[in-house]
């Protein structure tokens, strides 16, 4: 492919300077890492811009308009402003921990990007064979940063924010991890690239097998990122700014970047696991089949970014529409609704997979095509899996209602009251309008 030929030229040039293993395992990964960091940072910066613009359109405003055309340079201006601000540390703060906490937050959010498959072939930095575990493990390190920040600030608001965030993240981590298992049953691998390949080779998104898993993952992801309606740790109307109340300037902006980077990570992982990652119908047939490999990779990366961007929009949309949960209601949602739903999902998915395997080769029926990558299903196998997936929606709704019907907030809409309108009799006027002129 002519457009991307320079890549091969660069490769040739590098091969003249270094040995082949050095080029393949040191130079190119470094270039990839650099690119991913640059792209993620840019994405994070412009996610803030997009958030402000989208919220502005929802709220009948214009949003940033002054810096550059349509305010496009606003993120850069904000970044410069934050860099030049005073790095203020409260007098009684635990200085060392106060210094370190923001870096932990940023590193935890950015490192996950290493295993995210942005596309096939050279668009993956590293394909760890336990990628999913790696994502879960590293993203939970982010909690540590919030706790340390809240504790070291020596402020009650920050402490309350940190307590809330630790409780919240720990409880949502559980349902998040359990929700993924359903998709992994079909993928038969923990490698994130492997999950995408499983979806691509079967021409299906796991969303159709795992609708409940997808919703649980997304909700827990939003809660995990402390985004509205679950933004309790930084609930500005109660806790001022939560765990980063005492932070200012650059350190504050690191927390801010970590928050947005964590959002990008969750959307990227959700895309990979449930929306087919970089896989999109027809792309392979129109590019790779003609031998245009680099174009195939480039288009796949764009597909991936588009899917993740749509999920990111969902984040913004929810934030500017919904009120905030209360702390105990958040815990209710996590433990009484999402966790049972995730468990039911695992059981039903396992049953579904068992039924598919059992029906294979029975009465001349073929449900499983191959086990080469993922659970390769034939058309009839796919139908069974989809029926199990969407039937699970009703089953879960039923079981959750059974569990929770006694709760105060089970059916709040029924509790919605109409207001009484009373025509109170008029008393003796204090002031009488004059009738004659």
């Amino acid at each position: 492919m002519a457009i991307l030929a320079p890549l091969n030229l660069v490769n040739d040039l590098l091969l003249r300077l270094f040995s082949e293993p050095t080029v393949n395992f040191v130079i190119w990964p470094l270039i990839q890492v650099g690119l991913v960091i640059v792209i993620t940072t840019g994405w994070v910066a412009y996610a803030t811009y997009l958030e402000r613009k989208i919220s502005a359109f929802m709220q009948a405003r214009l949003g940033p308009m002054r810096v550059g055309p349509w305010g496009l340079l606003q993120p850069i201006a904000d970044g410069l402003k934050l860099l030049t601000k005073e790095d203020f540390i409260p007098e009684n703060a635990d200085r060392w921990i106060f210094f370190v906490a923001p870096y932990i937050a940023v590193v935890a959010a950015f490192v996950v990007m290493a295993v995210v498959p942005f596309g096939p072939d050279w668009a993956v930095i590293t394909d760890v064979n336990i990628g999913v575990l790696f994502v879960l493990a590293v993203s939970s390190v982010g909690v540590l940063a919030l706790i340390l920040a809240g504790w070291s600030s020596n402020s009650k608001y920050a402490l309350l924010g940190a307590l809330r965030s630790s409780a919240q993240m720990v409880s949502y981590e559980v349902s998040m991890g359990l929700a993924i298992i359903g998709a992994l049953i079909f993928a038969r691998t923990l490698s994130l690239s492997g999950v995408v390949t499983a979806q691509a080779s079967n021409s299906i998104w796991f969303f159709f097998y795992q609708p409940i898993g997808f919703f649980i993952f997304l909700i827990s992801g939003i809660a995990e990122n402390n985004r509205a309606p679950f933004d309790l740790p930084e609930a500005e109307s109660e806790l001022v700014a939560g765990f980063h109340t005492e932070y200012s300037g650059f350190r504050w902006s690191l927390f801010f970047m970590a928050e947005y980077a964590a959002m990008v990570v969750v959307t990227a992982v959700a895309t990979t696991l449930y929306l087919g990652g970089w896989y999109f119908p027809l792309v392979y047939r129109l590019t790779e089949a003609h031998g245009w490999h680099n174009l195939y990779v480039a288009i796949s990366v764009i597909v991936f970014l588009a899917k993740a961007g749509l999920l990111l929009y969902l984040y913004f949309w929810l934030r500017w529409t919904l009120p905030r949960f209360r702390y105990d209601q958040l815990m209710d949602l996590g433990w009484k609704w999402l966790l049972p739903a995730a468990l039911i999902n695992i059981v039903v998915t396992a049953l579904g997979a068992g039924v598919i395997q059992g029906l294979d080769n029975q009465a001349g029926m073929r449900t499983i095509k191959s086990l080469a990558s993922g659970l390769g299903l034939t058309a009839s196998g796919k139908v069974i899996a989809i029926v199990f997936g969407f039937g699970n929606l009703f089953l879960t709704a039923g079981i959750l209602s059974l569990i929770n019907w006694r709760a105060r907030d089970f059916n709040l809409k029924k509790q919605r009251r109409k207001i009484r309108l009373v025509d109170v009799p008029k008393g003796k006027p204090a002031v009488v309008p004059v009738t004659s002129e």
Partner: protein
Amino acid sequence: MHQVEIATTREALLDAPEMTLNMGPQHPSTHGVLRVVLKLDGETVIDLDCDVGYLHRGMEKIAENRMYTMIAPYWDRLDYIAAVSNGLVWVETVEQLMGLDVPRRAHYLRTILTELNRIASHLLWLGTHAMDIGAVTILLWAFREREEILKIFERQFGARLTCHAWRIGGMPNDAYDGFVEDVKRFVDYFPTRLDEYETVLSENRIWLSRTVGIGVISAADAVAIGLSGPALRGSGVPWDIRKARPYAAYAEMDFEVPLGENGDTYDRYLVRMEEMRQSRRIVKQAIENLPDGPVNAKVPKLIKPPVGDYYHSIEGPKGEIGCYVVSDGTQQPWRVRVRPPSFINLQALKKMSIGHLVADVVAIIGTLDIVLGEIDR
């Protein structure tokens, strides 16, 4: 006033099972400069104390040294969100004291403009209350409609917030050209906007779970504390000064009073939403039947009410705002006393919030709809 005990020594702090949290006076959701000292067990409020006075300007004392006409602009600064209503209570009290007969047209204009002010005040309450609970978008939407009302005020009075709307005996000017059209346009489209807010909030599951059963106060308690306005009617007490002792042109208006049942935050929310609809109904009637004629009574150049005293109150957006004036026959009142609805409504905060969480305290402060300018005076 009741004081929350605060642990000060290191040992006491370490031993104390509770945490004392100082909310305000600089806090994003105390609606001004209210300081609330909370005693928390975990996040549950076990004790609470309000500290007011950060905005004290000595209004009542200032009024003793000003002539009757000069006091009116001060009253705009009490409840600066409802300056038009506050101004009305002052001029009507003095008019009653002097026995002035205000022309019919002025009464009608007063009714229209105070009701518009009530809508503006309730919109501000809706926006800030929703923002306290986390729905930020509603604030901007509410401000969009409030802006239309403020534009009408600006054209009529020359100011948006502290309007100095009335003069003793009538109005400073007649309605401006195009006033009727402006008001009619607002009246026509306003219900659709109210429906928008109700779509976002009234049946929203999170909104319901945040407001239903929060900050409950029974009708008996509400009366005992002396609550007034929507906070009282949310508990189901049918008391509205516009009905009980009609002033301005309310005696000729046809409207209903919305009442809640449980006296929780959600009921008060519904009451205020319905009040906005009723206010619109009143404005519509008044603007359609707006009589012609002068807007000023014959008022003496020097206002010297006869010796005596008078208490007059009106239904402000926050509740019963009253004014007690004692005249000694000079150009200056001998004593003025304001009955501040927000100050009295704030007394219910402790009763409402003990046993709830910190997040609920914010919601309850929001639902009481307090304005610190009027609490501290």
